[in-house]
C-alpha cells in the first residue's frame, strides 16, 4: 500500500488525524482546549517536536540499534521538547504559563513516539518530514476546532491571540460547563461522532 508523497502529508489532515481518527494523545487534547489560543500554541509546539524528531529518527534509523531504539527516540524527543519549552519561556511567557505542565508532557505524548516508531524508523527523511508536518498540522487543527467549540459555547468569546473576541455579544448566557473538564469529554465525544458520521461510506 504505497502512498504518494502528497498523501503522506494529507493523511494527517483527515484519514489519520490524531485525536479523531487515531484517538491518540487525548490528554493535552482534553486539558488545554479551553481557549483557541492554547489549542494553537499546544498544537504548534507538538508539530515542531513531531517534525524534528521524525526527521532525526529517520536520519539515524540505520544507526540506532533495535534493542535500544525506544531509549534513543525518547532522548531525541525529550531534547526537542526541552528546546520548545525554553524557547516558549523566552518568547511567549504568558502562553507558557497557561500551558504549564503540558509542554514538558509532550515527551510522553503517544502521537510523537508513535510516529517515530511506526513511521520514521521505516521511511526516508523527506517522507518522515511530510508525515510529521501533516500529523502535526492535523493535531493543531483538531485542537483549535475543539477549543473553538468549547470556548464559543462556554464563554461566548474566541481567543485567537491574547485578547478574546466577543462573538455572541453581551446578551449571550455562557454555558460554562463546556470550558470545565467534563465539558471537554462531551465536546470531544460529539466531535468524534460527527467525524464518524461524515466519514461513513
Amino acid at each position, binding site marked *: 500500500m504505497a502512498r504518494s508523497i502528497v498523501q503522506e502529508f494529507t493523511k494527517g489532515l483527515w484519514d489519520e488525524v490524531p485525536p479523531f481518527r487515531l484517538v491518540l494523545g487525548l490528554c493535552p487534547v482534553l486539558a488545554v482546549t479551553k481557549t483557541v489560543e492554547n489549542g494553537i500554541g499546544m498544537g504548534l509546539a507538538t508539530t515542531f517536536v513531531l517534525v524534528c524528531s521524525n526527521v532525526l529518527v529517520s536520519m*539515524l534509523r540505520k*544507526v*540506532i*540499534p533495535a*534493542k*535500544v531504539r525506544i*531509549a*534513543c527516540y525518547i*532522548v*531525541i524527543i*525529550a*531534547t526537542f521538547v*526541552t*528546546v520548545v519549552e*525554553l*524557547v516558549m*519561556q*523566552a*518568547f511567549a*511567557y*504568558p502562553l507558557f*504559563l497557561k500551558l504549564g505542565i503540558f509542554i514538558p508532557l509532550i515527551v510522553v505524548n503517544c502521537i510523537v513516539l508513535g510516529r517515530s516508531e511506526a513511521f520514521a524508523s521505516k521511511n526516508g527523511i523527506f517522507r518522515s518530514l511530510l508525515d510529521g508536518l501533516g500529523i502535526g498540522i492535523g493535531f493543531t487543527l483538531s485542537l483549535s476546532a475543539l477549543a473553538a467549540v468549547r470556548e464559543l459555547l462556554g464563554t461566548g468569546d474566541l481567543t485567537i491571540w491574547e485578547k478574546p473576541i466577543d462573538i455572541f455579544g453581551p446578551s449571550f448566557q455562557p454555558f460554562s460547563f463546556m470550558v470545565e473538564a467534563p465539558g471537554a469529554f462531551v465536546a470531544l465525544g460529539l466531535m468524534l461522532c460527527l467525524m464518524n458520521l461524515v466519514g461513513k461510506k
Partner: protein
Amino acid sequence: MREMIKMLIVLTILATLSGGLLAAIRDNTKDRIENQVLEFVKGPAIRSILEGATNDPIVDRFQLKVDDVERTFFVGVMDGQPSAVTFETSGKGYGGDVGLMVGIDVENDQIKGVGVTTHAETPGMGAKAKTDPSFVAQFRELPLAEPVNVTGDGGSINAISGATITSRAICSATNDALKIYEKIKPQLADKLKEFK
C-alpha cells in the same frame, strides 16, 4: 558483544549531543527568560507602583545582600532623579506566603506604594488584595517612620472585609520592607547615584 558496544556508543553519543545542544540553547535564552519572568510576574506590580517613571525599572535593577539574603531592587527615575526603589518581601497569608512589592520614595521618606505579586489567597476575598486597587492605594505616601497596621491592630489601614489575615500579611510584609530599607539606606543611596 559487538552489539552491546554499539548500543553503548550510540546512546552515549546521542545523549552527549542532546546535552550540548540544550546547554547552548539554555545559555542563549537564560537572560531573556529571567526578564520575561520579571516582566510577567513582578512587572505589573512594579509598574503600577512606579507609575510615571521615565526609565524601565525592570532593566534598571541591581542586587544587594541584606542579612545574607540576596534581594533585587528596581529603580524608578522620576523627573530625572532616581527617587524611588522597589523590592519584594513576603508575609504569611491565609493560603501561604503573599509576595509583596514595596516601593520606597527615597526623597520624601515615604512609601511610594505596594503591590501584590504572588499569592494563593481565596478568590473574591483575600485575592482582592491584588485585584482591588483601593486596598493597596491606602499605603501610598505613608511615612516610613512608623510601622503600618490594620485598624483593628491600632493602625490606619482598613482591612479587606472578610480577609483580615491577608490584610495583616500585607502590613507585616510592608513592615519587613521598612526594616530592610532602614538597614541598607546608606548602601542604597550610593547605588542609586549610579542611575542619574
